[in-house]
């Protein structure tokens, strides 16, 4: 269990985030330390050189006043007082033969004989004398005294190494504390930052497992990207929920509306089987059955058409459609019916208007609108089909002088299987307008319905000219 947890933790994003954080912190501290170390060490070296030169001047003055015994006495007294501890003092003849020598106090064995080999003290006042094991080095300054003897003062690195060691130790102690602190803080920050993501996961998990889509992620009003993500995610969930509700509702409706003709079908067949009736009645019953089954089929086809168009599972067969020809075709299809009902149908459209679209689907949509217009317009009325071209596309208008749409029905006419009270007496399935809307939307268009005063209604369809590039 705890192993599994550790494994998961190591893979988790917050773990990686804290590792990055600590690594970054360590790296930058190292660079900072390196830089500081270099500065301190070079400044200490400079101090040492100044100290050497001061000492050199002191001893040169002493030599001037009291010659070799003075230098010896001064060196002895300073050695015993400890002032000369890290220093080397050497007095040499003009030919660099050692006259007096006081080595530094530390137990490093320098090869002082080498000092006698170098003779060019005048051209090179600084000598760098390394110990045989190359761990330590003496910086030595030389000066030629007025009587051509040579005075040399040197100093080892011990003092400044002490300081640098201390500096290093302090730094390491501090950095250790900081690393621990940064691990703690980094982990905390990473976990804190990823809290919304964990919230997302904890909500999403059960939804996928159980399909219960009601859950929402609590939104913390921080105003950052995570809040936006949570809000967007909740919106997506809401949309999915609405879609699922819609599908469930239309499936329920479809089942209900299929039940009615199925019941009639079954009833007719059963009654015909039960009773002894003359053969003509059987024929009658069978014809009824055929008609009812046709209605079931028609409804199924229509529902399939709508969902196909809505889901976009069937590609639109896009071509240049002449709108005027389209409207005239629809008008021609309904010519006879309109004449029978004594309704005047008028088409107003510029002849050269063209829009990209699927001819069959558009025809189907227009036929449905036309069918409604004629169905709900009383004898002697008018139906007008018109189209106008604009920059963005075309607007097709279907206007009638019929009974109009009841205000309470207006928002619901696009729903599948919805039928207003007035339309129930008419033949129809309540699917026509859903199909029209689906077709128009598949063309990236828009459709709106209005009531006209004093009577009738008007449908406005706008189709964009740019649909070709969209699909």
């Amino acid at each position, binding site marked *: 269990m705890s192993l599994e947890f550790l494994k998961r933790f190591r893979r988790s994003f917050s773990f990686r985030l804290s590792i990055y954080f600590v690594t970054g912190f360590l790296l930058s501290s190292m660079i900072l330390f390196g830089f500081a170390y270099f500065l301190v060490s070079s400044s200490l070296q400079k101090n040492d050189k100044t100290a050497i030169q001061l000492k050199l001047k002191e001893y040169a003055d002493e030599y001037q006043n009291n010659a070799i015994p003075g230098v010896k006495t001064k060196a002895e007294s300073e050695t015993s007082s400890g002032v000369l501890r890290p220093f080397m003092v050497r007095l040499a003849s003009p030919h660099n033969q050692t006259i007096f020598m006081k080595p530094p106090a530390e137990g490093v064995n320098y090869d002082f004989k080498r000092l006698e080999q170098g003779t060019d003290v005048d051209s090179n006042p600084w000598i760098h004398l390394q110990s045989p094991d190359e761990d330590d080095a003496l910086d030595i300054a030389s000066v030629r005294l007025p009587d051509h003897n040579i005075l040399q003062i040197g100093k080892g690195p011990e003092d400044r190494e002490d300081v640098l060691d201390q500096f290093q130790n302090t730094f390491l102690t501090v950095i250790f504390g900081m690393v621990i602190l940064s691990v703690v803080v980094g982990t905390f920050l990473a976990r804190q930052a990823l809290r919304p993501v964990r919230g997302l996961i904890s909500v999403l998990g059960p939804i996928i497992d159980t399909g219960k889509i009601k859950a929402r992620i609590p939104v913390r009003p921080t105003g950052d990207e995570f809040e936006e993500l949570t809000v967007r995610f909740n919106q997506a969930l809401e949309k999915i929920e609405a879609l699922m509700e819609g599908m469930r509702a239309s499936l329920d409706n479809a089942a209900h509306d299929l039940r009615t003709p199925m019941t009639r079908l079954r009833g007719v067949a059963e009654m015909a089987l039960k009773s002894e009736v003359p053969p003509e009645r059987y024929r009658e019953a069978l014809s009824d059955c055929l*008609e009812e*089954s046709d209605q079931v089929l028609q409804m199924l086809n229509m529902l399939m058409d709508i969902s196909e168009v809505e889901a976009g599972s069937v590609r639109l067969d896009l071509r240049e459609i002449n709108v005027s020809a389209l409207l005239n075709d629809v008008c021609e299809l309904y010519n006879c019916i309109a004449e029978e009902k004594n309704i005047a149908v008028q088409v107003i459209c510029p002849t050269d208007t063209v829009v990209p679209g699927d001819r069959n689907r558009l025809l189907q949509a227009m036929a*449905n609108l036309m*069918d409604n217009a004629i169905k709900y317009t009383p004898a002697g009325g008018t139906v007008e089909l018109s189209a106008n071209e604009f920059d963005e596309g075309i607007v097709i208008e279907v206007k009638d002088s019929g009974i109009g749409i009841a205000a309470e029905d207006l928002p619901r006419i696009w729903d599948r299987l919805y039928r207003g009270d007035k339309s129930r007496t008419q033949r129809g399935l309540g699917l026509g307008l859903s199909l029209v809307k689906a077709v128009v939307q598949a063309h990236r268009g828009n459709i709106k319905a209005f009531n006209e005063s004093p009577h009738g209604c008007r449908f406005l369809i706008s189709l964009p000219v740019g649909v070709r590039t969209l699909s």
Partner: protein
Amino acid sequence: MRILIVEDDQKIGSFVLKGLKEAGFAVDRSADGEDGLRLALTGTYDAAVIDLMLPTRDGLSLIGELRSRKMKIPVIILSAKRSVDERVKGLQAGGDDYLTKPFSFSELLARIQALIRRASGVVEPSSLTVGNLSVDLLRREIFRGTKKIDLQPREFALLEYLMRNTGTVVSKTMILEHVWDYSFDPQTNVVDVLVCRLRNKIDKDGADKMIQTIRGVGYVLRVP
């Protein structure tokens, strides 16, 4: 006339078989694709009715195989898929006509007869005569007995279509396809209205009714 049915559904197969036999055809039925292909390749059939979803070899590949062997037998495809894409696919594979399930048997019969007629290469007549109704297709003149009848273009097209299928019931879908050239059902009663108007012009004045409605199926023109 001999017809081959390749259909795996027992009930559909047998009602089509029975119906076609009653209509005077000799009929053979096969329930799977390979067997159907073997029968079709014997070359003894005047037309074939082929379902798309078949065991051992699907309908489209059966038709493709027939066509690749230069068999010109007219084929009607039966399918449960009704989208335009599927129809186009079927016709491209070499089918001559496409009928969606569920279908009316009368429609199947009418389509088979039309296919056979087309395949047999009968010379297009310049006039049609049924009973005392005669139509001059070139001059577009119609006479019932001695009385001249005036028709609008759609009415004329409908009458011509009914007369070419004399005695055969044609469905509303077939009328929509042939008279308006629409491949979808506009869910309206346009066909009924047009038939009604034609009937008023042809069958009025107490003459015997030639255009008859077969409820739930369609319309038929017969000598009364």
